[in-house]
């Protein structure tokens, strides 16, 4: 299997469509025959990121590079940025508004959960410019 790259533009104004990209990525990984546990880890991490983009950044772009050994996920947005990444990584910390919590999200578990399900994660963010989150999941990790 050669490496492939998938790109998705994430609309920021339609909560009902959030998750379509993650669903598509999960489907591709299934078609490529990856282990279900690996697929689940990638799917959850990407979905959390996709939801974050819709909630906080008015959309963005997801790029996924799939190789036999690992999957690299890059989430890029030009939203408001994260003033304090360390604080944002704390479980339970959230800046999501009430209407987002009413939709079942914004419990402050998104970023910690993305870290939990991936093997590597890096966040680069600048207030007023945007945020880039890079994650890696190894196919043979447990």
């Amino acid at each position, binding site marked *: 299997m050669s490496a492939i790259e998938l790109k998705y533009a994430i609309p920021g104004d339609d909560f*009902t469509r959030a998750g379509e990209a993650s*669903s598509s990525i999960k489907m591709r990984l299934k078609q490529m025959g990856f282990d279900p546990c690996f697929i*689940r880890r990638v799917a*959850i991490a990407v979905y959390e990121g996709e939801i974050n983009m819709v909630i906080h950044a008015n959309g963005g772009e997801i790029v996924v590079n799939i190789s036999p050994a690992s999957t690299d996920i890059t989430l890029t947005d030009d939203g408001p940025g994260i003033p304090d990444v360390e604080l944002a990584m704390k479980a339970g910390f959230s800046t999501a508004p009430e209407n987002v919590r009413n939709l*079942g999200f*914004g419990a402050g*578990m998104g970023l910690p959960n993305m870290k939990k399900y991936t093997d590597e994660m890096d966040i680069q963010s600048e207030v007023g410019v945007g945020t880039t989150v890079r994650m890696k999941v190894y196919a043979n990790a447990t």
Partner: protein
Amino acid sequence: MTISDIKNILDCMVLCGEDRLGTDINTADGADMMSDVLAFASEHGVLLTGLVNSQVVRTAEMMDITCIIFVRGKTPDQSIIDLAGNCGIVIMKTREKMFSACGKLYEAGMRSGASGT
């Protein structure tokens, strides 16, 4: 315990996935916050929720959850049912409230698959 057993215990109406009621289920979790489901729920289980929107199905899809049960008689619209059908997820609804629904399943031997709680 099969989905059919759960259907009988909670007197559920099946909205989607009637052909998969024989599927075995070993764990169940109840939550209205999908953030919590994404953090703690186990795969191949049942999710009981009072939240009704498309992200419940998307969350279940990512988590490999087999069956969603909407409590308090809540009925999802057809687009949510169709989405679940495409994802191979069984959808049922029960008149039971969350507390009593979870209690009845627990009494029947079902346990949570949640990790980290």
